[in-house]
């Protein structure tokens, strides 16, 4: 099952990378705000149901893919 994990800097945590990207976009003339830069991990997970895949991905996030002190995560399971 195809699973996408999105890892973001936690809300309220300073994201200097996002700020720099936002500043650069503004210099290009775009009117943007609130830029945050995170990470995307695509995975193939062997699971019988989307719920099972999601549960596995959640464990992966807690144990490795995200640092819970500073990052939040979101999991999307592609239904086949």
């Amino acid at each position: 099952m195809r699973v996408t994990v999105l890892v973001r800097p936690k809300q309220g945590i300073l994201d200097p990378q996002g700020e720099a990207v936002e500043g650069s976009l503004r210099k290009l003339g775009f009117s943007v705000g609130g830029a945050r830069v995170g990470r995307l991990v695509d995975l193939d997970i062997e699971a019988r149901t989307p719920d099972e895949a999601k549960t596995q991905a959640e464990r992966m996030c807690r144990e490795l893919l995200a640092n819970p002190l500073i990052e939040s995560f979101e999991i999307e399971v592609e239904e086949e």
Partner: protein
Amino acid sequence: MSLRPRIAVLVFPGSNDDRDAAWALGALGADAQLVWHAETGLPRETGAVVLPGGFSYGDYLRCGAIARFAPVLDAVRAFADDGGPVLGICNGFQILCEAGLLPGALRRNRDLEFVCRDVRIAVERTDTVFTARCEPGQELTIPVKHGEGSWYADEQLYGELEAAGQLVLRYAEDCNGSVGDVAGVCNERRNVFGLMPHPEHAVDPLLGSGDGALLLAALVEAARERTLAPA
């Protein structure tokens, strides 16, 4: 038994201050031995462990996140659980945080800049084996060189660490945006310590400062005491 206490300096793929650390510890009287990350044990009579600076595993995912799975880390964890002194410098500090041996996390520097210069650091706590040779409030000049050294703890964790006296070193000048200007923290038991500055690059006044020797010589002393202690 050797009079020079043995200190294991771990080497990960991407470590680059391992030899500097071993050289500095050797100059301060230790028998420093480089230990490859794939080893499953530490050398016999190891009295202290140093996780050096560098970019272990290419800093993939997050700095230090992959190194915690190195086989040698299990031996380090057991050594720390047994009360052995463990020092993490820069990337070594990041690894210890990711491994859960030290509290907090290290983030991208606030100004996105790779900071590479001498900084002044204030010694907040002298009740660790690592800072035992310093005076309370003493200012040390030690270089930093990192892009992801901004230490973070949320308000609650920060309060707990401060109350427990685990915030050992603070920058005495603006450096990287660390919460509370924290430059180094220890664990609750005070035998595991990590810092972003590089004491191994400050052991000879010829190179600008000898202040790092205060920390490393204390580690050598702690290693000696542990080696001499009856098993």
